C-alpha cells in the first residue's frame, strides 16, 4: 500500500516536471511567432469544436437508443400514461431546439474562426429579428404551459370521493400501509399515541378505526382499475412516497397530511409479461433524504386484480388486532400527561 502511495507521488512529481518542460518549451516557441501559433490554435480548436459537436450529437442519439429500454419504464397508472405522453412531446420540442442551437453554436465557432484578412461583421442589433426570437419561444412555451397545466389540473382537481382510501405512513426507515376498510374512512391518529403495538398512533376509541387494516410486513397491495385516494404521513422527518412505475410521488411531512389520487392500470402479473421478467416487482421508494439508512427505505408493491386484492386484504389483520381494551386506557393515560405537561 505504502509502495503504491510513494509510486503515485513519484509519478505526480514526474508529470508535473514534464508539464513544466512543456510550458517552458511552448512559451519559447510562442515568442518566435505568436501570430502564426494563434492561427494554428484557431484552426485546431475550430476543427475540434466541429468534431466534438458531431461526435457528441451522435452519442446523444446512440445513448438515447441504447438506454431507451431503461427510460420511463411503462407507466402503470392512468395519469402516468398521460404525463409520459406529455413528456415525450416536451422532449420533442426541446430536442429540436437543442439540435438547432447546438449545431449553430459550434458550427459558427468553426466557420468564423479568425482570419487576418477578414473583419467581423459589425452587426449588433436587429429589432425585427429580436422580436421574432422573443415571440416564437413565447408561443411555444405558452403551448407547453397550457398542455402541462391541463394534465396537472386533471390530475389534482378531479373528484376524490370515489377513491379507495389508504394511508402510506413513513418513519425511519420503513413504510406502513393502512387501508380504511369497508367504511372507507381512516380512523383518527396522533403521534402521542404511538407505541410498539400501535406504530401508527391510532386512536382506538374512534369507531372509524375499527375496520382499518394495516400491513405488517414489507409488502403492500393495490387493486387494479380502482382509484386510490392516498394520504401520506410521517412521524419523524420528511420522507417522500415515490412509486416510479406509477409516476406517483408525494412528500410525507410530519405534522400534516398530504394526498395523491391515482388509478393503477396494470397488475404485477401483466407487468411481468410486458417486461418479460418473471421476477419483476413494483416498488415504493423513499425519495427524500431521511437519514443514514435512507437508501434502504422501500417497500414491495403488488398490484392485483380487485378480487385477488380483496382476498389478500381479508387475510391481513386489523389495526386493533391483539389489543385489549384495558391496555388501551393505560396507554392513553401516558400521552395525556405529556399533553398536560406541554
Amino acid at each position, binding site marked *: 500500500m505504502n509502495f503504491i502511495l510513494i509510486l503515485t507521488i513519484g509519478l505526480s512529481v514526474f508529470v508535473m516536471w514534464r508539464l513544466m518542460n512543456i510550458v517552458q518549451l511552448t512559451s519559447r516557441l510562442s515568442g518566435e511567432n505568436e501570430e502564426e501559433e494563434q492561427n494554428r490554435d484557431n484552426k485546431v480548436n475550430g476543427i475540434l469544436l466541429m468534431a466534438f459537436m458531431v461526435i457528441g450529437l451522435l452519442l446523444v442519439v446512440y445513448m438515447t437508443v441504447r*438506454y431507451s429500454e431503461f427510460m420511463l419504464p411503462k407507466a402503470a397508472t392512468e395519469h402516468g400514461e398521460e404525463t409520459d405522453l*406529455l413528456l415525450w412531446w416536451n*422532449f420533442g420540442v426541446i430536442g429540436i431546439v437543442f439540435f438547432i442551437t447546438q449545431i449553430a453554436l459550434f458550427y459558427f465557432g468553426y466557420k468564423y474562426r479568425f482570419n487576418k484578412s477578414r473583419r467581423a461583421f*459589425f452587426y449588433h442589433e436587429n429589432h425585427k429579428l429580436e422580436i421574432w426570437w422573443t415571440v416564437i419561444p413565447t408561443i411555444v412555451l405558452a403551448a407547453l404551459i397550457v398542455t402541462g397545466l391541463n394534465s396537472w389540473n386533471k390530475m389534482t382537481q378531479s373528484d376524490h370521493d370515489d377513491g379507495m382510501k389508504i394511508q402510506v405512513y413513513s418513519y425511519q426507515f420503513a413504510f406502513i400501509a393502512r387501508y380504511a376498510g369497508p367504511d372507507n374512512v381512516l380512523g383518527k391518529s396522533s403521534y402521542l399515541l404511538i407505541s410498539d403495538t400501535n406504530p401508527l398512533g391510532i386512536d382506538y376509541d374512534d369507531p372509524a378505526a375499527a375496520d382499518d387494516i394495516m400491513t405488517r410486513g414489507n409488502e403492500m397491495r393495490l387493486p387494479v382499475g380502482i382509484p386510490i385516494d392516498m394520504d401520506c404521513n410521517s412521524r*419523524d422527518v420528511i420522507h417522500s412516497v415515490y412509486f416510479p412505475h406509477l409516476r406517483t410521488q408525494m*412528500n410525507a411531512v*410530519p405534522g400534516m397530511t398530504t394526498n395523491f389520487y391515482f388509478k393503477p392500470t396494470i397488475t404485477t402479473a401483466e407487468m411481468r409479461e410486458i417486461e418479460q421478467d418473471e421476477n419483476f416487482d413494483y416498488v415504493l421508494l423513499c425519495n427524500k433524504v431521511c437519514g443514514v439508512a435512507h437508501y434502504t*427505505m422501500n417497500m414491495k408493491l403488488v398490484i392485483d386484480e380487485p378480487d385477488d386484492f380483496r382476498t389478500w386484504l381479508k387475510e391481513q389483520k386489523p389495526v386493533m388486532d391483539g389489543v385489549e381494551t384495558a391496555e388501551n386506557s393505560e396507554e392513553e393515560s401516558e400521552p395525556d400527561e405529556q399533553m398536560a405537561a406541554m
Partner: protein
Amino acid sequence: MEVKQGVQVEHAAEHDAHDHEHHDTFWTKYVFSQDHKMISKQFLITAIIMAYMAMAMSMIFRLQLAWPGEAFPFLEKIIPNFAPDGILDPSAYLAFVTLHGTIMVFFVLTGGLSGTFSNLLIPLQVGARDMASGFLNMLSYWFFFASCTVMTISIYVEGGAASGGWTIYPPLSALPQAIPGSGMGMTLWLVSMALFIISALLGGINYVCTIINLRTKGMTLTRLPLTIWAFLITATLGILSFPVLLSAALLLIFDRSFGTSFYLSDIFIAGEPLAHSGGSPILFQHLFWFLGHPEVYIVLLPALGLASEVISVNARKPIFGYKAMVVSMLVIAFLSFIVWGHHMFITGMNPFLGSVFVFTTLLVAIPSAVKTFNYIATLWRANIQFTPQMLFGIGLVSFFISGGLTGIILGDSALDINLHDNYFVVAHFHIVMGASAIFGMFAGVYHWFPRMFGRMMNKKLGYAHFWLTVIAVYGVFFPMHFLGLAGVPRRYYANTAYKEFDALININELVTVMAMLGGIAQLIFLFNFVYSIFRGKASPQNPWKSNTLEWTAPVKHLHGNWPGRIPVIHRWPYDYSKPGAKDDYIPQTVPFTETPESNLPADEREAKFNEEIANARSDV
C-alpha cells in the same frame, strides 16, 4: 462620494509624482488588504482551495456509487475516519454529498465567482480608485474566510458534518436523533452560513454602491460592460434574498437549541414524542427557496456577464443585442423571486398555487432563450480567436442550452412528479448552474489572469484543460438523465435496494470514470494557475486587444488603479471590427473626434453627449 473620489485622485497622483510605494507592511498588503485587486485574489485562491476539496469529496462518493461496497484501500489511508476498510461509510457519504453541494454553491460559485470578479472588475471597469468602502470589502473577505474555515472544521467534529443535503430541510436537520450530522456538524453549518451571509451582504452592498456612485466621467449605464450589469443585478439579488436565508437559519437555530417550534410539529422519534407543536417543516422550504432560487441566478448571472465580455472580445464583434441582454438579465432577476415554489410541487402545496409557479417558471425560458440567441448571433460572421477563455465561453453557452432545456421539463409540475428529487434533477442543475457557472469562472480566470497577476497563463495547457473538462462534464451529467428517467432517486448511498436498478450500474461506472477524467483535467488547471503566477510570460498592456477600461491601468498594480487622472469614457465597450476603423477594436477611452473614419451617424448623438458632460463636470 464626489469629494472622496477627489481626495483619492490627489492621493494617487501624489504617489505617482513622488514615485514611492504605499507604506504597506506584509500584513496590510497581503493579509488585511483593503485593495480590491488583492481582495479579489484572496477570494479566488480561497475559492479554488474549497473547490478542490468539494471536488475530491464528489470523486470519493462517485467511487461508492459506481462500485458500491467495494473496498478502495487508498481511501483508508487518506480518510480513515470516513472510510474504514476502504469503504465509504453511509453517514460520511451523506456528509460529503451535503458539503459538496454547500461548498460548490456558496463558497465557490457565489463567494468565489462574485467575490473574485466583482472585486476585480467593478472598480477597474467603471473607472474607480477602489470600492466604495475598502474596509467593508476587507471585512467581506474575512467573514468569507471564517465561514470557509468553520465549514471545513465541521467535517471533523463528533457526528460528522451536516448530512441532510445542502438544502438542510428540517426536521432532519433539526434533530440530532434523526441523523448524527445534525448535531455539532449542523450547528457549525449554520454558523458558517451566517458568516457567509454577512460576507455576501457586505460585498453586495459595496458592489452596488460602487457601480452606482463611483463610475468615471462618461461611464453612463448604457456604456457599462455587460459584466458590470451582471454584477449589479447579482449583488441586488443577493441583498434582497440572503437576509431571508439568514432568518430561515436563525429560526432553525432557535428550534434546535431553544426549544421553539417554527418548523417542528407532531414528531415521534427515537421512541418518544417530542414537545414541539404547531410548526411546519414546509415553512422552512418556502424561506429557503425564496433565497434558493434567486441563488441559482446569483451563481449564473456573473458567469453569463463574464461570458458576454469574453465572447465579444474574442469574437472581435460587438455583443449582439446589448440592450436585450441587459433587459433579459433584469427580467430573469425579477422572475427569480416568484418561481421558488417549483422546488416544492410535491410537498402537498395547493395545486392551484403549483400552477402559478409553473407559469412563472416557464416564463424564465423566454429571456434565457433571448440570451442564447444573442450569443449565437454574436458568433455569426465573427472573427473568432480561440483563446482558452473563448472555448470556455462557448462551452458555457452549450451547457446553458442543454441544462436550460431540461428545466422546461422540470418546471412543469405534472412532469416533475416523477422526476422530482431523482437523477434527472441532478443532471439538470449540474449542467445549467454548476458547469455553466464554473465555465464562466474559468473563462474569467483565463481572460483576467493577466490583469490579476501581471502574467499570462499557458495556452496549450488551457486547451488541454478545456477539452478534457468539457468531455468530462457532458460524460458525467448527460448519462444521469437516463438514470433519472429510470426513476433512480438522488442521495442514495447505493442503488442495491431495488433490483431493477442493477442493470443501470454501467451508467454509474461511466459517470464515475468521466468524473475521474474531469478531476485529472483540474490538476492541469491547478498546475497552470500556480505555475503562471510565478513563472508565466509577462503580460502586455492589453493582451486580448480589449476595449474595456481595466486594460488601460498599468500592468503593475497600483494603489488607486490609475496614475494621475482616471480615464474618461467616450463610447460603449463593444466597438469591435467597426467598419473603417484602423484596428479591429476601439477602446472606450478613445473619443469620437479621433476616429472620424469609423463614426456612424448614430455616434453623433453620443459625441454630443460627451461634449456636454465634459463641459458640465469639468471640475471633477
